[in-house]
């Protein structure tokens, strides 16, 4: 088989790339290969699906005829197993070989599973982990989501343990609580979401979680999982035993790079790409969770496993694969989250506490009672990070200021004022933005 564009993957980055390709080149043969059998679905929606907010159909964020309409040959449920970069050929699980003109690696991430006594797993032929005990799951695939939901709805599952108090773990826990399960979250580190939360944000969200009825055991790890065929409980590092019939492992994700390990493709923690999403091998691109992409706030390349960065990076990759030279300068670690109704957004460099001083200026507003926390981090008069809690509606303007690298020295005092808006910006800038003469 021959094609002009070959995309390995079928999630945000991959879909973005083929959508961009089709904006430029409607005819060039395009093939997508993915290990999972499903049409593109949103991994980010898994907690919402489990919480019972909608039916399975809504997991699919593109119409069923997406591939046909976009003239894409989708080979789903067949994993890519080997790449021959010299002959520009990809071998897939059923033995077929596909020759490509341009190749995109959008293989995403895999859940990290710590070593725990009484628990082993293998990767099944399709996607993700298969544990040797029933009732144990990661929280990263639609197969997991469907099976967890089936068990929860059967009514036989009453008690759940979630290992990991990160974003995925907390959202999983909330969804399970909404299903009226008794849930315990086991978390190792004191700080909540240490990549993005500072001490204040961590403390305020923790308090809110506690008030919302979430039981979280901090400073613990899992020593062992008990049960024969099915999980029956867990034993913590201090010997405490907790009974459960559902165990969710949400101990983080790592880039999925096994396909290109020990090949010419340069890997650091993830696949190394430049601003055009090109890897170290000609005609091979990468985007999304598997790649180390440019972070404008850090001014460096790093893993950025968030949906928006995957999509934006995939779009840039797609354009470049078509010969359109575009640079990715869009992304940083950005998160929009909500925990039991408390919404929090973060972007850029936000986690440092001032007392540990990295020398950046910080603006802060805290209202403990209203659970409002606003923090803006400034370097050389430019915004490089933020945390906004319970008052996020105009937060996008801050991200805009960050991206555009606007000098804020003349309106710094306005940034955290109650009625902050575009009107707070200097007239020329504001007019440029509102009339579209300034690219914002």
């Amino acid at each position, binding site marked *: 088989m021959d094609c002009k564009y070959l995309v390995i993957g079928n999630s945000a980055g991959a879909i*973005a790339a083929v959508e961009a390709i089709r*904006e*430029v080149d409607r005819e060039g043969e395009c093939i997508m290969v993915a290990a999972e059998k499903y049409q593109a679905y*949103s991994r*980010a*929606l898994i907690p*919402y699906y489990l919480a019972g*907010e*909608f039916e399975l159909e*809504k997991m*699919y*964020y*593109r119409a069923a005829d997406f591939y046909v309409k976009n003239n894409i040959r989708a080979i789903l449920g067949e994993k890519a197993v080997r790449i021959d970069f010299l002959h520009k050929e990809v071998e897939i699980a059923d033995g077929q070989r596909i020759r490509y003109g341009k190749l995109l690696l959008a293989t995403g991430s895999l859940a990290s599973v710590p070593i725990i006594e009484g628990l082993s797993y293998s990767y099944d032929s399709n996607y993700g982990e298969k544990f040797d005990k029933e009732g144990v799951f990661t929280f990263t695939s639609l197969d997991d989501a469907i099976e967890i939901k089936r068990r929860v709805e059967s009514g036989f599952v009453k008690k759940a343990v979630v290992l990991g108090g990160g974003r995925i773990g907390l959202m999983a826990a909330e969804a399970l609580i909404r299903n009226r399960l008794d849930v315990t979250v086991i978390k190792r580190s004191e700080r909540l979401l240490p990549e993005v939360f500072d001490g204040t944000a961590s403390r305020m969200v923790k308090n809110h979680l506690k008030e919302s009825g979430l039981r979280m055991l901090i400073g613990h790890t899992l020593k062992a999982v008990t049960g024969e065929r099915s999980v029956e409980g867990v034993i913590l590092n201090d010997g405490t035993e907790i009974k459960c019939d559902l165990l969710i492992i949400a101990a983080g994700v790592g880039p999925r790079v096994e396909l290109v390990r020990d090949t010419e493709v340069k890997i650091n923690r993830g696949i190394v790409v430049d601003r055009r999403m090109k890897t170290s091998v000609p005609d091979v691109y990468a985007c999304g969770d598997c790649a180390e992409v440019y972070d404008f706030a850090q001014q460096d390349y790093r893993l950025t496993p968030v*949906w*928006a960065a995957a*999509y*934006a990076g995939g*779009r840039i990759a797609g*354009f470049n694969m*078509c*010969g*359109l*030279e*575009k*640079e990715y*300068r*869009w992304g940083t670690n*950005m*998160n*929009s989250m*909500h925990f039991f*109704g408390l*919404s929090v*957004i973060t*972007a850029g460099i936000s986690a440092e506490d001032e007392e540990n001083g990295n020398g950046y200026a910080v603006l802060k507003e805290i209202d403990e009672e209203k659970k409002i926390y606003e923090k803006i981090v400034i370097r050389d008069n430019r915004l490089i990070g933020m945390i906004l809690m319970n008052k*996020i*509606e*105009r*937060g*996008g*303007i801050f*991200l*805009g200021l960050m*991206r*555009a690298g606007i000098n804020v020295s003349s309106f710094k005092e306005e940034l955290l004022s109650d*009625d902050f*808006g*575009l*009107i*707070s910006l200097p007239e020329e800038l504001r*007019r440029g*933005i*509102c*009339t*579209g003469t300034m690219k*914002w």
Partner: protein
Amino acid sequence: MGVEGVFRGIMRRIYCKEEVCIGCRLCEVWCRIEHSKSKKVLKAFLYEKERAIQRVQVEERGAVSFALQCRHCEEPDCVYSCISGALYKGNEVVMHDTSRCVGCWSCVLACPYGVIAMDEVRGKAWKCDFCEGVGREEPICVEKCPNEALRLALVLEVEHAESE
């Protein structure tokens, strides 16, 4: 490398002339009425169970005021951030299928204009639909602006014209 710009068409856009905006907020009022079920002012504001949310917002400080709604960006960050496929780019307009929206607020973080409204009660985002969603030819805010501060402009959109 040689891909020239792709001509996408002539797009209608709403602009506010701030010198003549009097800050009356009639655009906000009419936007809400037009997007309400009854299209009646009293019901829209007081009695409808599922109350409509306005998608235009007047910003005001001292003598300066202007109305702002979705810019319907050529490269809409909100669409690229949407985890559910609710936001999508139509021909001319960035559209939002609220039935698919889960209220994750990714678009709120992504929009550099801060014009996506959060409805925390229903857990939905709301944004300007150019009144396409209510079947109007022309946006109501433009039609009802008493001082013609809000007006429609035609903009030539050429995609991928320059390397970024």
